[in-house]
């Protein structure tokens, strides 16, 4: 079911990797739906009281229940349901007042009961949507369903750990970790939209504080269904499923690859085979899984060990009232409260943590636009350089940034010196005042001292002075540069400008 009819199409004039450019017979668009699994950060597991702490010793956070021993029974963690409802409300879903758990049956050593307790028919929530922006245009992506389930354990086949290729180890710490599965409608029309959707979804989960959303650590996982069709067609093509995309960048890359692969097949008159593929990060290609691995009949049936989940309307309303301010509302508030442009507000509020960082900095240095420029510019660039690092662990805290901005405003350092201080703060985590003092970076604003340098430079370059006086305006920059060089960049730029203008015009 399409909840929103308009689609943005993205023609692909050429095929990206690894194919070479060829001229296409027609324009194509992708039809993409995403299945996202996110680990909820409740204190205990979904069906027992074991801790969910990450990084514990193997099999430390386990008990007979999450180990699936004979005779034990699951007990639903209420917090998981609450987090699920929170998420579903933030994604505009209808919460089911009656939902069921189901068993998904399959054999695997790290699944100790040989079934996963999940939801199948009658999930927790359905019929929602998430709004995304692509190229400045808003678009609603339908959320088909949200359901709760337990995670499986982890098999370890690494010979360096097990000591032999005849053995595998199993760590059940992850077994029974609470997951939400969020399934979208096939409403995305390009890999870029898929990435935007995923980022928006991550933003919502972060705002709700229900998940850490760390793709590398596996607390956010994403599978995609993708097909292509001639642009303008309403018929769906044969889809493939792409798995194993373990970062935001990889989701887009994998989908771009898969889209191009499918287009190439169609262009050559071939047919798409419905199959499940794995994204190979190293080679940058998708590869079909062996058919044996996907030929599962999970034999779902209602979990008889759990009673139907009946959710009280009042509880839903209570949770609705307790929902935090989400990205869109925060964007609006940033525009009105701080008077910053919408573009800035959107970038800053896309992540709760960046928005928090921004607001904390503005509190200490109340010049919203200047702060916005620094956060959107230097801070975000710095984080991107470090593999999409987390702003919460950024060595430059709001105190650092605000302190540095104050130093600029007071004239203690120049904007140019600030870049040096910035790099140093990132590298060492030292406060800006300390760095400035240690490295002697204080701006020279003493007129006599600067004038002496200016005089010296003018005296040493009579030819350039003559050129300037003859009308070569560019030469002015040369003098500024020389003065700054002579003072290791510490001279107050305004003062340098003023003095040079005075002295060169006489």
């Amino acid at each position: 079911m399409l909840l929103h009819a308009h689609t943005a199409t993205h023609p692909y004039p050429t095929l990206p990797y690894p194919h070479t450019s060829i001229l296409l017979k027609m324009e194509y668009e992708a039809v993409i739906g995403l299945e996202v699994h996110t680990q909820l950060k409740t204190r205990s597991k979904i069906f027992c009281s074991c801790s969910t702490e990450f990084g514990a010793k193997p099999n430390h956070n386990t008990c007979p229940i999450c180990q699936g021993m004979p005779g034990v029974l699951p007990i639903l963690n209420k917090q998981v349901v609450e987090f699920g409802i929170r998420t579903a409300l933030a994604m505009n879903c209808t919460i089911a007042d009656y939902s069921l758990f189901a068993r998904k049956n399959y054999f695997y050593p790290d699944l100790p009961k040989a079934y996963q307790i999940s939801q199948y028919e009658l999930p927790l929530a359905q019929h929602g949507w998430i709004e995304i922006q692509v190229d400045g245009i808003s678009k609603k992506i339908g959320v088909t369903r949200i359901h709760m389930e337990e995670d499986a354990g982890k098999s370890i086949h690494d010979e360096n750990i097990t000591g032999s290729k005849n053995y595998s180890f199993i760590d059940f710490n992850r077994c029974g970790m609470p997951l939400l599965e969020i399934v979208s409608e096939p409403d995305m029309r390009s890999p870029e939209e898929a990435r935007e959707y995923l980022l928006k979804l991550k933003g919502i989960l972060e705002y709700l504080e229900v998940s850490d959303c760390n793709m590398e650590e596996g607390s956010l996982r994403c599978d995609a269904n993708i097909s292509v069709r001639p642009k303008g067609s309403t018929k769906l093509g044969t889809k493939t499923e792409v798995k194993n995309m373990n970062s935001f960048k990889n989701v887009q890359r994998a989908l771009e690859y898969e889209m191009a692969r499918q287009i190439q097949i169609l262009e050559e008159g071939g047919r798409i085979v419905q199959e499940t593929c794995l994204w190979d990060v190293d080679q940058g290609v998708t590869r079909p899984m062996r058919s044996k691995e996907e030929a599962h009949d999970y034999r779902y049936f209602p979990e008889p060990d759990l009673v139907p989940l009946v959710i009280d309307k009042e509880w839903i309303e209570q949770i609705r009232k307790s929902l935090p301010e989400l990205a869109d509302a925060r964007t609006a508030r940033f525009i009105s409260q701080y008077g910053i442009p919408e573009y800035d507000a959107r970038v800053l509020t896309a992540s709760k943590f960046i928005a928090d960082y921004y607001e904390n900095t503005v509190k200490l240095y109340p010049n919203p636009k200047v702060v916005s420029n620094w956060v959107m510019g230097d801070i975000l660039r710095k984080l991107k350089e470090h593999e999409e690092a987390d702003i919460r662990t950024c060595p430059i805290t709001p105190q650092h940034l605000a302190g540095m901005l104050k130093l600029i405003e007071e004239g203690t350092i120049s904007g140019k010196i600030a870049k040096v201080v910035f790099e140093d703060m990132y590298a060492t985590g030292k406060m800006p005042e300390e760095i400035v003092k240690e490295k002697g970076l204080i701006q020279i604003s003493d007129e006599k001292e600067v004038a002496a340098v200016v005089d010296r430079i003018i005296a040493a370059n009579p030819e350039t002075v003559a050129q300037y006086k003859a009308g070569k305006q560019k030469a002015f920059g040369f003098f500024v540069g020389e003065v700054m060089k002579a003072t290791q960049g510490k001279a107050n730029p305004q003062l340098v400008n003023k003095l040079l203008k005075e002295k060169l015009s006489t």
Partner: protein
Amino acid sequence: MELCDYTIHELHEMMKRREITSRQITESVLSRIDQVESRIRAYITVLREEALEQAGTIDQKLQKGEIPLTPLTGIPIAVKDLICTRGVLTTCAAKILHNFIPPYDATVIARLKQQNIVMVGKTNLDQFGMGSSTENSYYGITRNPWDLSRVPGGSSGGSAAAVIAGEAIGALGTDTGGSIRQPSSFCSTTGLKPTYGRVSRYGLIAYASSLDQIGPIAKDVTDCAILLNAIAGYDPKDSTSVNLPTPDYTRALVPDITGLKIGIPEEYFIAGMDGEVEEKIWEAVRVLEKLGASSEKVSLPHTEYAVAAYYIIAPAEASSNLARYDGVKYGYRADKYTDLIDMYMTTRSQGFTPEVKRRIMLGTYSLSSGYYDAYYLKAQKVRTLIKRDFEEAFKKYDVLIAPVSPTPAFKIGEKTEDPLQMYLSDIFTIPINLAGVTALSIPCGFTRDGLPIGLQIIGKHFGEETILKVAYAFEQNTEHHKKKPPL
């Protein structure tokens, strides 16, 4: 008469009067085991040393006043080997769990331990509770104490045989389709299947989760009520246990059933039913009428579909419940295998009996894509209709009365070659599990060959007090429960 031949409440009175100790009772039970166990084989594990030690400790603590003398304190109890006991081998009568020692107690065991019972041992059963004769066990066949060439019924055959033979004073069984009531009927014990949700299933190794219940198997109605008092009640560890107050079931035991309305389901008197069984049931009805009850025929129209629905639902759940026995973490693992899939297949092929495999295959089939609607879903609909039959009947009647089994105990080997015949021996007990209501089996006479016959008294959801009261009235006016097998 030895101490081991007395009832729980009789022994309790003697202990109260300080005439006997727990150790004396336990020694009596163990000595009976020495005498008869080689012929009956009711147990998989006898906890000889542990039981004596427990009894000694209990006596000491009682002496010092450190523990109260509850109705079960110091009483030797046997536990079906499908119920987890901490530190004690729990096999489900299966090779695949031949070495499984649970690190936890089932809730019912924890509750019995609170009352300081003496655990005598773990009793034999049809593997994972699948069977009606206790022939389907990795640990051999249990024999009926009334006739060693016959089966004790099943699947709680070990518990019923142990109790009637004096190898335990009382026992716990489990009932998924008749597994407490049918062996009680075959062995002349009193066994009660509680309402689904009345007793915690935590620690009961699941056969069919939506049908399984733990219940008492005892020498009379009073003992049954005492054991039920100990194990019944809400358990936060079992979501399907019901949060309702638990009455004192012994207070329901007043022999007054004046005005009681009995319904007699006509579908339970089928062609091919043993004549002597039918005769004894009607005789029992006449006893109850004489005590002031009135009876009337009632129709439970969907009864004929019960066995079919049961053999879809129970195996479906079993196929999933038993999937965890894969040789990975505990229990049996095949010695030789080539890869993971081969390890699974070899382990499970060797670890289960043919009957268990048959049910796993049945269940796997009916849950498979393309068959689910036609089988599992249809069976669930039938189940709802059967439940409605009972609800309708209980609008009019206080209890329903029926036979437990169409025949008395059959010969060992008689039905093992014909699973369908075996399945039909549960025809009168299965509907009760599907409906989730409560029922008990009480001795109501013997065949001319001296084989016990059980009367089934069925009550509505949470109607345990009513059926116990009717059973008590019947028992107070009959002598069948006092008869012992000639050993």
